[in-house]
């Protein structure tokens, strides 16, 4: 993973193939079922505590709609207020530019090489999206993840599989093995005789990370929100490790997607209620850190805010698809998604997995782009059951965007190909049959005849072509000899009456 367009992991197979691999991992499925089930129940319970939950959702959705419609205006206000508070704002059009800006900033922090060649990181989706850790490594800078789950992923040379709980696919005995094997490579090794007790694992991480917090001169974070009127940037987290990064180092660099801006500080009221309840099922966030530029004698002496586009402006141009930019990365949609629950996040081949990833990733990378065929398969990785829409705290209509993007994927395919696909041909034929009752009746007769030829004991077993995998695990019922339409005409229509719709004569002769 290097260079631009890191939203999608290059070389990832399309979703159905990746999902097949994931489904074969029974440990993964057990870990996921337990974890998502627990968070799901907690979220439902704490959301039900608030009588105005639906009003909060509606308000949040309205604020996001408004902000996205006037995004340029609010971003310029944010730049002005951050600058006035002593921060420096940088604009990055894509991943490569953002990585270059951050790398140059880290190099320019002064001090000896040893000190400047490492940074501590607050868990951040934006920096994962641009592949910042890898870009920094290419420049000889070591980035240490300090979020416990991100640490597990980094030490395990793994990829995150969940927006909020990146190591959700790991259980505690796997984590113990990773700590024992890898901690020594990155710093303080795991204690002798480390058990898989959560308390022991947390203590090992605490000791390992503490020396990094105390040594680092530079920290890099993302942002959950930024208020345009005051220039205040917000990070919410559960462990306090983020706050260590945000307060101890001399220089703080925040990489923020441009959609994270909110018009005013007062808007945080709604979002700081919705986010913890939707994400971790907690009433409020254990650590909510807010900072406005720099403050003499307190916290970092230099603050840089990198405003990242990386496909967002293009997404904004799509009137249906743009609502995906309202996402506050709570991952409620992942935890309720029956597809995600069975495949896990890696199958989505993107730093944004689950339902929101299925609508965000194809838009950020461009659904018609040749090298990203995996992204075009993502909008189809859903049954359109709608559980994600119900769970979304900012009311992103994910099913609506999914079918919208499916249409775009089909149209992009039509533009690229000289010959239509088998699916397109089948859809065309079905469309022709379904557009006229006469043709439909003829097709029904053919289907009934064909089905009788392959049936055994009134059921259809193995089927050819695209139906092969369906028929591997399900019987198909035999169509009856008489369709409903034919039954109605036989029993209800007076003889010799012309059918006005089809022009077909019912009576013989």
């Amino acid at each position, binding site marked *: 993973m290097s260079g631009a367009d890191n939203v999608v992991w290059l070389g990832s197979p399309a979703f159905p193939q990746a999902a097949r691999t994931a489904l074969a991992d029974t440990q993964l499925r057990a870990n996921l079922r337990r974890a998502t089930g627990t968070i799901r129940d907690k979220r439902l319970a704490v959301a039900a505590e608030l009588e105005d939950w639906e009003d909060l959702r509606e308000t949040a959705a309205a604020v996001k709609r408004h902000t996205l419609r006037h995004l340029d205006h609010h971003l310029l206000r944010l730049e002005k207020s951050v600058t006035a508070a002593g921060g420096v704002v940088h604009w990055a059009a894509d991943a490569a530019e953002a990585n270059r800006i951050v790398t140059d900033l880290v190099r320019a922090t002064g001090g000896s090489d040893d000190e400047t060649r490492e940074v501590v990181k607050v868990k951040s989706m934006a920096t994962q999206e641009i592949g910042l850790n890898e870009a920094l490594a290419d420049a000889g800078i070591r980035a240490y993840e300090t979020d416990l789950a991100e640490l597990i992923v980094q030490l395990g040379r793994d990829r995150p599989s969940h927006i909020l709980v990146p190591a959700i696919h790991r259980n505690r005995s796997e984590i113990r093995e990773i700590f024992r094997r890898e901690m020594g490579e990155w710093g303080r090794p795991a204690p002798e005789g480390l058990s898989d007790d959560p308390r022991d694992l947390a203590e090992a991480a605490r000791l390992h990370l503490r020396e990094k917090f105390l040594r680092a001169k530079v920290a890099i974070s993302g942002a959950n929100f930024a208020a345009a009127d005051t220039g205040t940037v917000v990070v919410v987290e559960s462990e306090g490790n983020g706050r260590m990064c945000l307060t101890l180092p001399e220089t703080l660099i925040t990489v923020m997607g441009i959609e994270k801006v909110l018009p005013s500080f007062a808007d945080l009221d709604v979002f700081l209620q919705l986010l913890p309840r939707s994400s971790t099922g907690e009433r409020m966030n254990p650590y909510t850190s807010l900072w406005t530029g720099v403050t003499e004698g307190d916290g970092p002496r230099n603050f840089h805010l990198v405003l990242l586009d990386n496909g967002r402006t293009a997404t904004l141009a799509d009137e249906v698809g743009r609502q995906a930019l309202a996402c506050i990365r709570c991952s409620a949609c992942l935890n309720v998604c029956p597809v995600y629950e069975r495949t896990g996040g890696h199958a989505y081949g993107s730093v944004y997995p689950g339902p929101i990833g299925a609508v965000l990733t194809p838009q950020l990378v461009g659904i018609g782009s040749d090298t990203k065929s995996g992204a075009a398969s993502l909008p189809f990785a859903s049954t*359109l059951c709608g559980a994600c829409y119900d769970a979304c705290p900012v009311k992103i209509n994910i099913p609506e965007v999914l079918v919208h993007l499916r249409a775009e994927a089909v149209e992009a395919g039509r533009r690229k190909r000289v010959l239509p696909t088998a699916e397109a041909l089948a859809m065309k034929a079905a469309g022709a049959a379904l557009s006229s009752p006469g043709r439909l009746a003829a097709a029904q007769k053919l289907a009934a005849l064909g089905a009788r030829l392959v049936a055994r004991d009134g059921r259809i077993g193995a089927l050819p072509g695209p139906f092969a995998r369906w028929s*591997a695990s399900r019987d198909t019922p035999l169509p009856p000899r008489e369709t*409903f339409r034919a039954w109605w005409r036989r029993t209800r229509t007076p003889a010799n009456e012309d059918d006005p*719709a089809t022009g077909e004569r019912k009576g013989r002769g």
Partner: protein
Amino acid sequence: MRIALFITCFNDTMFPRTGQAVTALLERLGHTVEFPQGQTCCGQMHFNTGYRPETLPMVRRFTEVFAGYDAVVVPSGSCAGMVRDHHRVVAAQYGDAALTEAVGRVAPTVYELSELLVDVLGVTDVGAYFPHRVTYHPTCHSLRMLRVGDRPLALLRAVKGIDLVELPAAESCCGFGGTFALKNADVSNAMLADKMRHVLGTGAEFLTAGDNSCLTHIGGGLSRLRTGVGTMHLAEILASTEGDPR
């Protein structure tokens, strides 16, 4: 009241018994059912698979065929959802102002069966008799697009002789999803396996739902495993009486 039946292409071809049940049920309640012969399909398969231009003729046809009725009854939550939620999207994108206006007139008259019975006709006890152990699967589109809520359960609870048992994790998707079951067959199978496990755990003789598509998927799995559990559309249970058992 002029009630038209939109049978849906899938029920027409595969499950005429469901249509016959809807007809028998509504006639038993004293209503006349009309079956416009020009009807074909709501276009859901094309729309949901991304073939929007191909959907337009079906939207146009539906809107013409079903104009002028007081109510259109559909024994399918997902087809009712397609007509109510998505026809206007197709009309706006590929049609013209006249079609958009026509869709706007027709779509609100379309009801899924349990909605028609409870909201429009005002009945929950339809006088049915079905002496079997039954469990109900609320299909996703009935549940989340149409918000039918517990209307189907209220109808089932009023059936005489029925032993209605709750389905664990009822609101989890069964994994059908139209062409999803073909495109993502492995994930679909994994979801089906869990749904079947829950159905079998209830000890029910029949699984019922408001959509024959979901029932074909779940029933196909139950049949392959030789479980002996049957699937039956809600309409067929509601149409059953002592004199006319299904």
